[in-house]
């Protein structure tokens, strides 16, 4: 049976990581690259086999679980080390192994000059393995292992250039900020165990409608904690500050970890727990609000940055904001759809920016680029395609996915969410084309000593493939005439949720507790799918995207003096350029007090209190020993005397 191969998918990259980590220096760069990319390719092929096996499952069975071994047990609590395959997992598996493989290939070219090539690929493969564990684990604890594992690899890879202070700081920041979210996630898992007595996904999701009261306290707290976990990993307000700094890592890392896969883990987790979130309307409001706010805030910051990778980083934060918004209005399919298309075009954009940086010898400031179109045509065209996709120009993939998110924001949320989303879309089109125009068009501002050149084939081929995917990725979710699409039908078994049934259970439980159940009847009215509204919205958002592009064209091609005029001396602009001062605020509010308190604890409590006690004990024992050592004279007859005296005194005591 093909599904038996499931456990191999995370195993291949793990083996690759071990080989590269321990023997990488000895086997040479070529072998390291082949092992790293090869293990990802094997994972991808295995995923295809699993997909085929999954399609052959009997009708009505939508999940396959493979328990490798029982991890640990205590009392009636036991955790399996097991994998589960369902439609959602398969989608994520293809994104991680497919995009991961392409980026691995690219990285072989990009990292080729590095001495610790093998170290990079050991971490990179380990990351892929952990990410696969995260998405394939069949219980919360295994997901948590993957969750922590990817965070750890992210830390290693951000700090890859560890001789650079800023890279180390960025790594530490990412790790610590993530820890806040991880802690909340762990609390949520404990709470879930407390209520359900199990942490297996299938069992929890199955029992949730019967054990939790709709909009009750328990489910609200659980989902809020889970969401805090998601904000950490997926870089949402208030924990987004680590992601822009994470750009200190090598560019393939930014593409794979900080754009395509790891940062979408929060979205995946929310979709995985969609049953719980469906039961907590208050959390859903928080989720949607956070997503919309993040989308628009990150987009405004993205407009003002000059570092090419930072612009893309804020763009990532903003796009994940869309996904979270989609989750918040209950449009999980749209969230996953946008996740997939975003993985394609954002990976392409990051790799393209890496190609640019590679081509002009490590320069990242867009003010020192310009006119690169002619020097690197492949990079330019693939970059342009992906930019059109993210800006939302039909018929590229980003158009369909973003539009679906916005449509659901309006239909299932409210007009405010939609308004924020469409404004962010306008800003996205603007700042992405600002980036393209500043980098590839206009006068060249490149240093005269630098001769820009196109990257080697091993780097441009991945760009072409990803650009192709970014073009056609929309096929997954082209709205058909009755309003449904492929991805929706595919994910239906995972996302299926019977609200009426859950409300019945909740009412029953509330009656048993002697409380009056509120009327939830209005929740059950089915919403009409409005085809004309959807078409209108599509046209509208396409117009918005074009407006943004035209604006960028005017500002950065036609009248390059305009941006200067608009921004000079404007306090509003400076505020945005300084990222709203959030970093400084966090510094003052959290970092400094922590550092000072730690310093106090170190100097006073640790050095004086604890060390004092320990050293004092040792010293007093030393003093006693000085006295006692006089007994050990070395004279045998002395010892004999002690024995005799001791024996006699024992006799005297006993009788």
């Amino acid at each position, binding site marked *: 049976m093909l599904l038996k191969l499931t456990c191999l998918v995370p195993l291949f990259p793990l083996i690759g990581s071990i080989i590269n980590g321990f023997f990488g220096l000895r086997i040479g760069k070529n072998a390291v690259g082949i092992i790293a990319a090869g293990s990802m390719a094997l994972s991808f092929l295995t995923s295809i086999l699993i997909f085929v096996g999954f399609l052959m499952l009997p009708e009505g069975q939508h999940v396959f679980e493979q328990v490798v071994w029982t991890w640990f047990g205590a009392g009636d609590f036991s955790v399996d080390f097991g994998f589960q395959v369902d439609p959602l997992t398969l989608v994520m598996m293809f994104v991680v192994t497919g995009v991961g493989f392409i980026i691995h290939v690219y990285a072989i070219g990009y990292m080729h000059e590095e001495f610790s090539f093998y170290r990079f690929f050991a971490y990179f493969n380990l990351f892929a393995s952990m990410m696969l564990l995260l998405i394939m684990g069949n219980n919360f604890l295994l997901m948590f292992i993957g969750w922590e594992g990817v965070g750890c690899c992210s830390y290693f890879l951000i700090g890859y250039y560890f001789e650079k202070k800023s890279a180390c700081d960025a790594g530490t920041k990412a790790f610590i900020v993530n820890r806040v979210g991880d802690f909340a996630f762990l609390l949520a898992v404990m709470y879930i165990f407390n209520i359900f007595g199990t942490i297996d996904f299938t069992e929890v999701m199955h029992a949730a409608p019967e054990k939790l009261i709709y909009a009750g306290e328990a489910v609200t707290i659980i989902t809020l904690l889970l969401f805090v976990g998601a904000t950490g990993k997926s870089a949402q307000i208030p924990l987004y500050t680590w992601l822009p700094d994470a750009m200190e890592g090598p560019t393939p890392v930014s593409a794979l970890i900080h754009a395509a896969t790891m940062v979408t883990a929060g979205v995946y987790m929310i979709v995985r727990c969609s049953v719980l979130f469906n039961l907590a309307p208050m959390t859903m409001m928080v989720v949607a609000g956070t997503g919309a706010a993040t989308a628009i805030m990150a987009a405004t910051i993205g407009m003002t940055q000059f570092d090419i990778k930072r612009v893309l980083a804020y763009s990532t934060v903003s796009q994940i904001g869309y996904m979270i918004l989609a989750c918040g209005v209950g449009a999980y399919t749209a969230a996953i759809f946008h996740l997939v298309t975003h993985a394609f075009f954002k990976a392409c954009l990051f790799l393209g920016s890496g190609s640019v940086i590679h081509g002009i010898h490590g320069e990242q400031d867009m003010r020192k680029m310009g006119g690169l179109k002619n020097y690197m045509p492949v990079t330019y065209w693939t970059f342009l395609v992906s930019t059109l996709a993210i800006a939302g120009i039909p018929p590229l993939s980003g158009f369909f996915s973003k539009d679906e998110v916005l449509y659901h924001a309006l239909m299932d949320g409210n007009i405010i969410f939609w308004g924020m989303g469409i404004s962010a879309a306008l800003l996205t089109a603007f700042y992405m084309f600002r980036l393209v125009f500043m980098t590839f068009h206009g006068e060249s501002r490149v240093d005269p000593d630098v001769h820009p050149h196109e990257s080697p084939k091993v780097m441009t081929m991945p760009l072409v493939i990803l650009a192709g995917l970014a073009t056609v990725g929309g096929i997954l979710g082209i709205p058909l005439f009755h309003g449904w699409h492929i991805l929706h039908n595919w994910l239906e078994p995972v996302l299926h949720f019977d609200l009426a049934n859950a409300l019945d259970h909740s009412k029953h439980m509330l009656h048993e507790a002697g409380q009056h159940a509120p009327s939830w009847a209005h929740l059950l009215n089915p919403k009409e799918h409005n085809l004309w509204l959807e078409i209108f919205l599509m046209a509208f958002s396409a117009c918005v995207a074009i407006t943004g592009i035209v604006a960028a064209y005017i500002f950065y091609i036609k009248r390059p003096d305009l941006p200067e005029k608009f921004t000079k001396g404007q306090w509003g602009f400076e505020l945005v350029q300084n990222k709203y001062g959030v970093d400084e605020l966090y510094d003052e509010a959290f970092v400094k007090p922590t550092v000072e308190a730690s310093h106090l604890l170190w100097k006073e409590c640790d050095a004086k209190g604890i060390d004092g006690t320990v050293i004092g004990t040792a010293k007093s024992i030393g003093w006693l020993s000085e006295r006692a050592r006089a007994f050990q004279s070395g004279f045998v*007859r002395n010892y*004999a005397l002690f024995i005799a005296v001791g024996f006699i005194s024992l006799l005297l005591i006993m009788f």
Partner: protein
Amino acid sequence: MFEGTVPLEHYLALSAVLFVIGIVGVLVRRNVIVVFMSVEIMLNAVNISLIAFDNYLNLTNGQIFSFMVMCVAAAEVSVGLAIIIALHRNKPTVNLDEFNLLKW
């Protein structure tokens, strides 16, 4: 128990006297050989009391045990004398107080 035999107390007194002689010998003499002989005296003092009790209680355990002690004593003599010879080769003396290196 008939008249004319030596009572248990006498044996025990002899044993005690020998034992104390042994202890004092160990403690006060400096000659290694003499100290060694004193240890042997102590062992034999114990043997006397073992056999005396044995006879008094009509048992055989003590006799067996005294053989055991003799065997151990013989073994100990061989090891002990070897040590003494080794000591003597290192230092041309048999004075115990000269051998005080084993200390901290």
